[in-house]
């Protein structure tokens, strides 16, 4: 019944979405154009990035629409939008390269720029070459988050300090970007494999809920302050850096009441997991329906938390518990919390997408066997790239610091990533791990990659301070 309805509605809703997305893109471009006229500079990096964001968002919306409704024509427009976004993205990279006089790999901002570019290219490759059309539903939102983060991070061109002036650096970072993008792709493919393999929707519910729970638990347990405040790092807008009390000790400001909201969101986010547990325990599917409703509620609250966080934490002054007076803070000072919150919303929305999927979604995806094999092939590509990346990095370190391996956190985590994928390959080749277990492994591997890429930079100290 529901299916018949979906089939009937499909042509109309399909056109509506394309028209809506097209209109939105046109509107945003118009706004951007007005902005350009005002500033008189068309090809500034901000504008290019803005265009990138607009097109990737349009592509993301269309890919998601394709994922939900399965209308083939979406994909055409989605790839068109991706192509346009990629052109703007390439222009932004070229602009940056020209302005800086070196390849854009020397700061988190520049690396994100390159990473997003690689991701878009790989998405198009996966779509055209392997026919994995739905891949954009996962990669485009990741690209969007990347571009949004870029807007918040520092953007001035920093000249390269002497240690970074080496061809090996470019080799190292290019390989890293390629390897990480390949890992991202393998993650997306593994996730699709799980869908195609008819993994139970509730399992996804549990995983989604647990990941968002982990995000909010992390935020609340590390940042909740007395009287419901939330601690955020103070930001010096002039110097565009965090405020330090002394070496390595950052100054925190206390944003009142935001802590309560985060704590409330934590509870609501936890509820689907609790109901899932009840459903498993009492073997009663009613609880699952409740759990799905709770996911809706949690998305609403998450969006509220995100909006409040953005509104309150951006360019405002708050008192600190450690020093007198008001100190400014900015979103740029808390990139980790921000990406966590955005990621939480994104994961939950992905679950909704899965919940509402057409019963014949399987037909749109390549067969489970194919997905399994392509995932493996992607990792076969990623692993040598990771190896070469580490080797180039070691060679560069040897040229610069006189030691090819010094166990700094980034190096160590790169090695850990390498080991995790090595384990995957051993399990697959010698123990014949296929299907689900291999897919879980590929997903875990990508989690480690993400930690190496972001987590180490923001959470752990080390030599890779500029990356």
């Amino acid at each position, binding site marked *: 019944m529901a299916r018949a309805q979906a089939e009937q509605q499909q042509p109309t809703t399909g056109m509506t979405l394309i028209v809506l997305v097209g209109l939105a893109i046109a509107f945003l471009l118009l706004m951007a154009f007005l902005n350009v006229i005002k500033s008189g500079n068309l090809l500034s990096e901000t504008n290019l990035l803005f265009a990138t964001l607009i097109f990737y968002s349009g592509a993301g919306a269309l890919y998601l629409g394709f994922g939900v409704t399965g209308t083939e024509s979406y994909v055409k427009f989605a790839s068109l939008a991706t192509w346009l976004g990629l052109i703007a993205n390439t222009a932004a990279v070229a602009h940056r390269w020209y302005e800086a006089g070196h390849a854009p790999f020397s700061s988190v901002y520049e690396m994100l720029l390159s990473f997003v570019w690689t991701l878009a290219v790989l998405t198009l490759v996966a779509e055209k070459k392997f026919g994995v059309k739905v891949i954009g539903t996962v990669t485009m939102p990741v690209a969007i988050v990347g571009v949004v983060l870029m807007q918040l991070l520092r953007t001035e061109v*920093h*000249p*390269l*300090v*002497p*240690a970074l*002036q*080496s061809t090996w650096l470019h080799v190292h970072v290019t390989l890293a970007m390629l390897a990480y993008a390949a890992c991202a792709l393998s993650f997306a493919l593994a996730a699709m494999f799980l869908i195609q393999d008819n993994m139970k929707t509730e399992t996804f519910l549990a995983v989604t809920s647990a990941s968002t729970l982990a995000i909010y638990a992390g935020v609340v347990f590390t940042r909740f302050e007395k009287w419901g405040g939330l601690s955020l790092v103070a930001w010096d807008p002039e110097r565009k850096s965090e405020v330090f009390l002394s070496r*390595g000790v950052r100054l925190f400001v206390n944003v009142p009441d935001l802590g309560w909201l985060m704590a409330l969101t934590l509870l609501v986010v936890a509820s689907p997991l609790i109901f899932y547990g009840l459903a498993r325990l009492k073997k009663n599917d009613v609880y699952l329906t409740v759990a799905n409703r709770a996911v809706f509620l949690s998305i609403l609250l998450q969006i509220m938390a995100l909006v409040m966080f953005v509104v309150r934490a951006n360019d405002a002054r708050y008192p600190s518990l450690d020093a007198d007076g008001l100190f400014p803070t900015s979103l740029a000072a808390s990139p980790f919390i921000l990406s966590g919150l955005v990621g939480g919303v994104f994961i939950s929305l992905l679950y909704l997408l899965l919940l509402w999927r057409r019963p014949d979604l399987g037909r749109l995806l390549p067969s489970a066997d194919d997905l399994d*094999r392509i995932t493996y092939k992607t990792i*076969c*590509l990623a*692993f*040598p790239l990771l*190896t*070469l990346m580490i*080797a180039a990095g*070691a*060679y*560069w370190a*040897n*040229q*610069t*610091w*006189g*030691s*090819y*391996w010094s*166990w*700094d*956190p980034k190096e*160590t*985590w790169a*090695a*850990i990533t390498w*080991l*995790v994928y*090595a*384990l995957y390959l*051993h*399990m697959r080749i*010698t*123990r014949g791990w296929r299907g689900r277990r291999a897919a879980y492994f590929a997903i875990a591997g990508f989690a480690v990659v993400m930690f190496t890429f972001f987590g*180490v930079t923001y959470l*752990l100290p080390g030599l890779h301070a500029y990356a």
Partner: protein
Amino acid sequence: MALDFRAVAHKSWRTIASIQTGVVLLILVVILAAAGTIVLQRPVTEPDEMQRAYSPQALRVLDAVGLTDVFHAWWFLGLMLLVSLCITAASIDRFPNSWRFFSRPYKYPDESFRRASHPQKSLPIADEETGLVAAQRALHSIGFKPERVVRADHFGIFAERHRISEMAVYIVHASLLLIFFGTIVDGLWGWSGTLNLNEGQTSNIVELRDGNTRKLPFAIRCDSAGQENYKDGTPKKWWSKLVVVADGHDVQKKEIVVNDPLLYNGVRFYQASYGPNGNVDKFSLVATPSNGSGEKQEMGLAVNDTVPLDADTTVRFAEFFPDYAIRDGHVYRKSNYLENPAAHLVVTSKLAGKDFDVWIPTLDEVADNSKSPWQFQATDLKMSHFTGLQVSHEPGQWAVWSGVVLLGVGLAFVFYVVHMRFWAVPVCDPKTGRCLLWIGGSANRNRDAFEQRFNDLVASVEEELKTIPGASRSEQVATVVGELKLGN
């Protein structure tokens, strides 16, 4: 008893060579390495920072188990050795089989192999020779070198490519062992430290990481060093002109920059930092007599230089503070950076039989400049700089780099080079006299792509069969029969 021992040895060998052990060990390495990035590590972290981060009890426990220096702890080294042992054992355990496979290729498929093999195809042929020639030509055309296998009672065609791919995994494992070997050699015999040289200074004492010093059998002199900046003032380039001095002779010269070290006798000198050492190279002054009678004098002084001002007065450049602070009427050096400089001059007058302290700038709390018979005006200050060199000796690094190259090659073989084999065997039914050419193939990876290749080969054999003269008639008949057979 001896038998027991052998059983135990055999069992331990099986354990150490098993993939489970390898996986467990690798997971342990992952966990411990991750712990090493989360717990603050000595000696990178300063002791007082460690004390701030952890309570004394916690710190004592962490230190006792070695978690504050994971990567140099004996148990981590032990674990790495176990991993090496495991890789070696696993490789040795599996090697004989692979070697047999590698050194004695399976050239003639027997009947049971032919039945089970995939992909395979049988084509009707006129006679054995036609089939063999067709297969040979087809294999030639796709760039293989087919060989004719002749046994006592049967014959066939065998062709293969990239047999080395079967050995690739051993190349990878061997390269990892080579890398481990290199790092162990470096850990045991290598060292690294720093050597700071002022311009013009010669030294052979290296300060090691652990606080000890090491005397080199030769010395290094820094002739000059410098820094170039970007427009915004951030450093762009540091350079030092270094000379190796051995037995009193200059034996090697090189201008080093960051990323381009000097190598002498296995010891590398890297440009690591550059900065003022807080000392004055040349201080330029103009001196005028306090009473106005007499000539102005210009002079350039280094610390401890003494120059005459007139017949019975001299001035000595006594002290220099690049960044001074005054406490209780005394001047202290706050840092080596040229932030807030002060110079101490001593004017000695034989006539008055007494010394006068002069400070530039005027420091009234310390001395009264106006008493001096001469007054001074600073015109220029040239600071001298030190160049910070990182010195290291890594005798094992060649093993590491060859290991890395070998690893790259090995991985390329593991993932991208496929061992492909093709067999063609004519099979004749003694009752009917009809002949079929059995074609089989095998690949050790990327099987779907191989299947395509196999189908192309079969098509090409079919083409060849048509072009071989003298066989065409009977072949056509055979084809019909073959198709009928397939139809069933």
